[in-house]
């Protein structure tokens, strides 16, 4: 469903991870231009992924895509280095706007 909501130009080379640990393994072995990160995941949630990346040297450009509607959730992920937060369900233009602001498109 997320993939179908993405602008086609972002779908050229997509790697998916089923949980936070798998995401960290992918990030350790691959260069990632943009990460779309959920917060509620098995094994290791989105906050823990961001904290682990902070501890290990850096967070790639990351937009958190979450159903969590608490304003504090958005504040926390921005403090952890995310470049944006979009709430499910979102319009593709919201992602594009964050990428534009970050100079990524």
């Amino acid at each position, binding site marked *: 469903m997320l993939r179908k909501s993405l602008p086609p130009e972002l779908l050229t080379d997509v790697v998916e991870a089923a949980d936070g640990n798998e995401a960290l393994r992918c990030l350790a072995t691959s260069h990632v231009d943009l990460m779309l990160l959920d917060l*509620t995941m098995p094994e290791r949630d989105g906050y823990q992924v961001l904290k682990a990346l902070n501890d290990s040297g850096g967070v790639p450009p990351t937009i958190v895509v979450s159903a969590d509607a*608490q304003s504090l959730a958005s504040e926390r992920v921005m403090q952890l280095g995310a470049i944006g937060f979009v709430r499910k369900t979102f319009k593709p233009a919201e992602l594009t706007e964050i990428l534009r602001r970050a100079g990524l498109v």
Partner: protein
Amino acid sequence: MTAPALSGEKLDALQELVNIGMGAAGAALAKALGAFVELTVPAVDFTDRRSVAGLLDAGPWADHEVEAVRQPFFGAFTGESLMIFDEQVHAQLADLLGYGEAPGGEPISMGFPNPPAMMRGEQSSPAPHAKSAAQQEMLLDLANVVIGACVNNIAEPIHEVVSFGPPAGLGTRADVRTYLLQEAVACHQGLIVNLDFKLEARSFLSRVLVFLPEHSLQRIDQALTQLLDGLAAS
């Protein structure tokens, strides 16, 4: 276990809708209590009578006294939702919301002494040692807000509208167990949606269950088809 009635793609989409419903419910809970709510991965499963009835015997619930609020919903799809709390809820709510006495000066007991067997959404004569009416009303209101946010936000993305019956209290573990068994029988071919909420730095547990019977699942199946077709076409 009943064979899944939804294809893999539609089950994924339903999981996403449930995720959205959980996020809205968590935000409603956070707003009502002024506390940050930790969300966990929601579980969407086809019902199995034994597993539903065993919900209270597993995980963190096994060692706690529980009470719950049930609420039916109607409209484009029908079903029942249940919000379960552990015995810490009343003390924690009193602390979070800063109340210590019920209207009229009746002291609120923070314990769980002999709660009433069942409220069924109506105020009844307080039994000796019963929780106060204010405590019960607080729980009904809280569950009403959370269940409403959850179910509405599952319905909204698929352009469906639901309305709600009155919330009703289930005062004891035995009441909740009886209800779970009845509901498992009533929707044995349907879906059960399981959402766990935990308040940051607080010790009470809460869980929302949404029961969707087979006929509701068919309606949701159709709506998901339209939703996915719409996403593919956009």
